[in-house]
């Protein structure tokens, strides 16, 4: 059987092919999740409609979605930036909570300042602490060869323990009775919403801007190119005389700083103080966002909004269909598994891409033999 394919279409196919594994992964996820719901005798279409409604169906759900997307963008960068240099860092949660804690205590320890200066100081403190924490994983890997995936997760557990100890102990505000917290942030220093009709705080803007900056860094700067050489082939990087250790440390510190900044906005715009509510799993979901976006900062913006939407719809599923809140966790798990499994197709995709690109170049031979 032979199919006639015009060169333009062949070129288009070659361009669109890299998205194929992701598209297939999402499609498989939808099918598997529907089968799962169907097997539990849950109305599949209604659940789907509810997920859409809870995520993007109204202004309120958009606000809810974007409120979750803002920290996800930043914690995803905590995975994606080190990934450029070939590291799999999964300890973003720890950097987020410690960053949030640092931001919460900054106004207590500094004299009164204009709000804008105080925000800069809080963000700087949060980013420094977050950057240090993730940088530690990178340092241990470069210095002693400690696997960074395990190392960063262990550091994250330690960070959560330190956070709980400080918030319930030395840094606890005596007035916080039922919910141990640090002293509340003065109203003057809390970060407000973007507009009175749209209740989403400025952290969203910060998330988008930081993702754009990260895009410029990894795609259009010399350092970004150096990161990918280190990630692609360490030996080649060393032969080029690149400072491999320093580059790895920089990607880790930048990633950690992003996660720390997420913690600062959670404290300054949502919680009003550092407390256990900061441990909301944004670090874990950020890993999924980064992998879904294939560590591409621009794609992270989109993926964070989509995943924020899925998580925002959880409470609606719980209320309307009586589904446990772990339902969205299963959806995320199935998606993650599929994204990685379809990665197996990538070798083929490269092959097909070259094939179609050549078809696009040779206008006379638009005939492909299939068999």
């Amino acid at each position, binding site marked *: 059987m032979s199919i006639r394919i015009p060169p333009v279409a062949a070129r288009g196919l070659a361009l669109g092919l890299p998205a194929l594994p992701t598209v297939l992964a999402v499609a498989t996820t939808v099918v598997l999740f529907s089968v799962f719901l169907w097997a539990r005798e849950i109305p599949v279409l209604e659940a789907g409609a509810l997920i859409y409604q809870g995520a993007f169906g109204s202004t309120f759900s958009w606000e809810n979605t974007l409120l979750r997307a803002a920290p996800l963008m930043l914690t995803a960068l905590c995975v994606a930036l080190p990934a450029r240099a070939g590291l799999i860092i999964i300890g973003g949660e720890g950097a987020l909570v410690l960053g949030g804690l640092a931001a919460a205590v900054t106004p207590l320890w500094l004299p009164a300042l204009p709000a804008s200066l105080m925000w800069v100081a809080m963000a700087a403190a949060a980013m420094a602490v977050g950057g240090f924490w993730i940088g530690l994983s990178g340092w241990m890997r470069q210095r002693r060869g400690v*696997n960074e995936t395990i190392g960063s997760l*262990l550091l994250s*557990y330690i960070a959560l*323990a330190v956070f709980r100890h400080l918030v319930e102990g030395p840094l606890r505000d005596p007035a916080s009775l039922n919910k141990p917290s640090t002293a509340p942030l003065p109203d003057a220093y809390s970060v407000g919403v973007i507009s009175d009709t749209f209740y989403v705080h400025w952290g969203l803007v910060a998330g988008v801007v930081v993702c754009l900056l990260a895009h410029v860094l990894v795609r259009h700067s010399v350092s970004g190119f150096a990161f990918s050489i280190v990630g692609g082939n360490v030996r080649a990087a060393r032969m080029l005389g690149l400072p491999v250790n320093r580059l790895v440390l920089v990607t880790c510190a930048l990633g950690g700083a992003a996660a720390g900044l997420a913690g600062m906005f959670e404290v300054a715009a949502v919680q009003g103080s550092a407390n256990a509510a900061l441990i909301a799993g944004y670090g874990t979901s950020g890993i999924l966002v980064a992998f879904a976006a294939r560590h591409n900062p621009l794609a992270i913006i989109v993926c964070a909004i989509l995943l924020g939407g899925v998580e925002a719809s959880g409470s609606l599923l719980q209320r309307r269909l009586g589904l446990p809140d*772990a339902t969205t966790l299963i959806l995320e798990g199935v998606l993650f598994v599929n994204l990685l499994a379809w990665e197996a197709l990538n070798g083929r995709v490269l092959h097909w891409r070259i094939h179609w690109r050549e078809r696009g170049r040779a206008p006379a031979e638009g005939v492909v033999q299939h068999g």
Partner: protein
Amino acid sequence: MAEIDYSVLLLALLAGAIRVGTPFLFVSLGECLTEKGGRINLGLEGILVVGAMSGYAVAYLTDSAWLGVLAAGCAGCALGAFHGVICSLPRVNDIAFGIALILLGTGLAFFFGKAFIQPQAPSLPSIELGAWSDDARVRSALSVNVLFFIGVALTLLMHWGLRATRWGLVLRLVGDHAQSARALGYRPALVRTLATASGGFLAGVGGAYLSLYYPGSWNEGLSSGQGLMAVALVIFARWQPLNCLWAALLFGASGAVGPALQAVGISSGYYLFAAMPYALTLLVMYLSCRPNQTLSGAPGELSLNR
């Protein structure tokens, strides 16, 4: 503050080492088996949670703790096989897939486990080694769960099996040099999948220990990184089952420091003591790893030593 009773503290630590260390032992034996074949399964953390949930659920429904342990092992085996099969596909990163499995396993366990948070399932029997003593503290400290002895037996079995049986040699060959194994007519992907599935079985049993003996009930905060620490523990143990036993006891003791101090009346810094095992793991990894050089005893095909 009253003077600390050191004998009580020591006894609590010893008892804790066995009590807290048993799940570490099972998970690390499972991970050891998986890594001997040349793959890493970080998903054992998720498998542990699924094992804890399914073990508790089946024990409650059938009123038999041992059926629960079997069910937990089978659930772990299925998830391990899943990891093994998918990672046999080209270009699938075993570490990243392990992270995905943690997420999926936790989701499944929390979803199906909602119904089992309240009811009380039968718990696993233990052997009273302290019957000779009149002191109730000694008796409770020396009441050791049967699974611990099974774990010790398994350790010895694996120690012998990896050295002296054909299966053990094939597994080690696949893990050290897949090409030679292929040349001899073995299929590395199949061997690794089987090793990961068996490793999953052991991790599932470790999970059942958590929910059926100590702490002894199913809830969503049951596991906090034991599965991951086991991966680090295997590195520390240099991929030797016997060393896994000692390492598991050491980690168990570090996890028991907080409760042991509470037993003698020191309760400040609870969270920091609870984080002891993580800090110990990090320290041990920092001391036992070397840059730019493969560790002695490390399977050659392991992606851990890139």
